[in-house]
């Protein structure tokens, strides 16, 4: 059988490639690794490079991200010192600090990092609930202390977790922790909504009645000032009239020259003025000039 050199080259090339892949492995800058030989951790690797190993199933390589892992725990309900229900969740930055210690702790899991986070989640739940119970709600929500109590609570939870990890020697390290969410349970939120609604109602009613009161005050003030102006005007008018009367009285001396005639003229004037309106007069024939209907007058006409 004629041997094809191309087939041989390709075959050898493939064997080299697949062999290379089976007998070597890379550890990236972002990773740390643990090599196990028949399941036993034999070589922790913390420096990035190309390394050799025996192929699976003799040796296996477990790589873990060495960077800080960001993890947010579940929203859990707790009771504050002053008996308010509060939901909290935190984010945690943690990393694998010692792969040789970390790996056996979580080797039974298909995803060791996820298993570590699951454990942290449970511990965080306890630590958070305990910290929440030691503080009144005003330590979480306050306009006075510039957030000092808030930071203190975060530190409490962080220290609790760090001491737990240290005690149990997990090969991981929690770098930082922060309160990410502060919430109220649904039913409590509803009561806060109701209270906020009532506050708004108070404000709305306040505005409404303040408006009415202010309008009423402005109107009464206006009426008072109008009345004042009119009263002053009337007083002034009366004064003016009085001055006129006084001035007119100066001419009465002229009438004093013939009081009888003046009286007669005044009466005539008064008679004329009084009959200016519609009036009914009943005369008998003795009233001048109707006395002309009498005989004497008639005779004078015939003369």
């Amino acid at each position: 059988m004629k041997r094809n050199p191309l087939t041989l080259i390709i075959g050898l090339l493939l064997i080299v490639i697949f062999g290379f892949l089976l007998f070597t492995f890379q550890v990236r800058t972002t990773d740390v690794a643990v090599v196990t030989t028949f399941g036993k951790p034999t070589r922790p690797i913390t420096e990035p490079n190309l390394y050799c190993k025996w192929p699976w199933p003799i040796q296996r390589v477990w790589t873990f991200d060495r960077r800080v892992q960001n993890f947010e725990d579940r929203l859990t309900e707790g009771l504050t010192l002053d008996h308010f229900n509060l939901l909290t969740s935190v984010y945690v930055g943690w990393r694998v600090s010692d792969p040789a210690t970390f790996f056996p702790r979580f080797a039974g899991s298909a995803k060791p990092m996820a298993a570590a986070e699951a454990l942290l989640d449970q511990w965080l739940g306890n630590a958070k609930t305990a910290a929440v119970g030691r503080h009144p709600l005003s330590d979480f929500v306050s306009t006075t202390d510039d957030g000092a109590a808030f930071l203190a609570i975060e530190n409490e939870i962080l220290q609790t977790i760090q001491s737990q990890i240290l005690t149990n020697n997990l090969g991981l390290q929690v770098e930082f922790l922060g309160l990410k969410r502060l919430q109220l349970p649904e039913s409590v939120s509803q009561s806060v909504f109701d209270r906020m609604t009532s506050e708004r109602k108070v404000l709305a009613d306040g505005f409404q009645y303040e408006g009415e009161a202010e309008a009423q005050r402005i109107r009464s003030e206006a009426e008072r000032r109008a009345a004042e102006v009119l009263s002053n005007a009337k007083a002034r008018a009366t004064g003016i009239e009085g001055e006129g009367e006084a001035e007119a009285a100066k001419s009465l001396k002229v009438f004093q020259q013939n009081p009888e005639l003046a009286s007669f003229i005044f009466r005539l004037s008064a008679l004329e003025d009084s009959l200016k309106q519609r009036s009914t007069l009943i005369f008998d024939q003795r009233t001048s000039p109707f006395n002309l209907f009498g005989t004497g007058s008639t005779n004078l006409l015939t003369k």
Partner: protein
Amino acid sequence: MDKTIQKNGLINLLVLLGVGVAALAVARYANSLGGQVGSLYLGLGVLVAAVSWFQMHLEQRERLEKLELEELAKGRSGSALFEAKDAELFPAQRSREQFERFFVPGFTVLLFVLQAGGAFLLWRWLSRATTVTEVRQPITGLALFGLFALVLFLLGRFSATVARLEHHRLLRPGASYLLCNAVLCLVVALGLVAVWAGFPKADLYVAHALCALLALLALETLIQLVLEIYRPRLKGKVGRPLYESRLVGLLGQPEGLVTTAAQALDYQFGFKVSETWFYRFFAKALGWIILLQVGALLLSTAVVFIDAGEQALLERLGKLVESRSPLGPGAHLKWPWPIDRVYRFRTEQIQTFTVGFAPGTEIERERYLLWSRGHKAETNFLVANREQLTQAVTNLVTGKRTPPVSLLTVGVPVHFEVTNLVQWAYNHENAPALLEDLSTREVVRYLVGVDMGEIMSRGREEAGRALRSRIQTAADGRRLGARIVSVGVGDLHPPVNVVPEYEKVVSANQTKQAKILAARADDIRTNALALAQAVTLTNTASAERLAREVGALAEAALFTNQIPAFKAAPSVYPERAYLQTFVRATANARKYVLLTTNTQDVIVFDLQESVAESLLNLKVPAPKPQ
């Protein structure tokens, strides 16, 4: 020679069995769905190779039996032995015939059931959410599947070549399965390469494709079974084994397709295209050309082009090349893959996330943004309420109370850019998520320390500045390598349930202002009218005063002139004056004159006002149409 074929068949069987077990183990270890489905093909190959090997054994026995009989026949011709029936004379032949008549169809039916049932059950298994898991150690998986492919290919090619010899046809089904499984192992390995390259669903797609192929094989087997019923059976003609699949053969040896295509070309062009120098050169050099292409492809990975707005990190054997990182936009030389690898990031692009709700809903695309329209996955943040906190301190009572806080719906867009790529990529596993967490925490911390009324009104601008500064400090503290460009606080508002009450307050405030303004208008009108009336009063008084003064003077002057007239005619002048005045004064008066004065008559005057006749005849005007 006959022993060789059996040995080859046995090797095929053992290799298929060994590789099948190993492939299943590797597939399960690597969580490769494609690998697990591919293992079924190897299992089918094992069955086919076992049956064909058994059939080889029967044929071998038959041949030996015939040889023995021929030898006997030469020595003892005409013996009674040869007068016996065929069945008694050729037990091996009879066994082979019984095997082909009953076992082979039965086995083919079993093969069909396995193929059809396997395709159905595996497809259903792949459709379950719990089936799909992350592929583990893809490099180990692809290397081993590549090796399996190589082993199967080499042995398959050898067996396929041997199968072309006379009496070796039964090697063909096993060889076909070897080659087909080599191709499938290569496909599985390529799927794992894709997973390694960042396409995690590639393995699932490969698994689905293999399921579909299995269904096709089942269909082919069914058709073969049906056709077998009507197949004309000619004496002495050896047919294909019923369980041998043409599709498997085609998949394992695709050059058969090329040969067919060449023959079609020959027929179409009218001359032997397949015998031209170009075709021959192409057929001969195709392998080298492909190898050259692969080499060129590998060499092309020695150049990397970074686009505008991007930066990249260069890693050599997993280690950051600090002297060359980060790579800026432009062309860069590097060692070919997999020695050097480049990881790209968009650093100059302004990136955005929103604290408080999930963006990307219809509401975000609307032209207006109202408090009353809720966002997707909106969260209510606790915010301090100075008045309530004071009341809570002064009224510490037990029992069910409403917390002395308010709730605020927040939409805070945070814009940032990456300024230090090494920190951004290497300090944190998920830097964008951490930045979002830090921002959310700062928003929460800020809100619980400010009064709601304040932040809703004049405190917004200050809140934007403070939040930007705090988030930047937090990001720097965690060495994120990001710069916070801006933080928007335009979308802070009360929760949707409370919004109508807030709007009512604004409405009430406006109503209040309206009422006050109306009262002020009334004020102006009342006082203006009063002033006008006052002026009228004083003017009237002044006029009357003048009239009084002038009238008094005129009357005095008149009286001064009347005195001489009276002195001149003391009786006539008064009489005349009286009568003149009487006429003027009574001109409009109704006058009754009683001429008889000495009678005792009672005269009754009706001085009652009577309604004028014209008033009684007034007509009411008709109503105007509306």
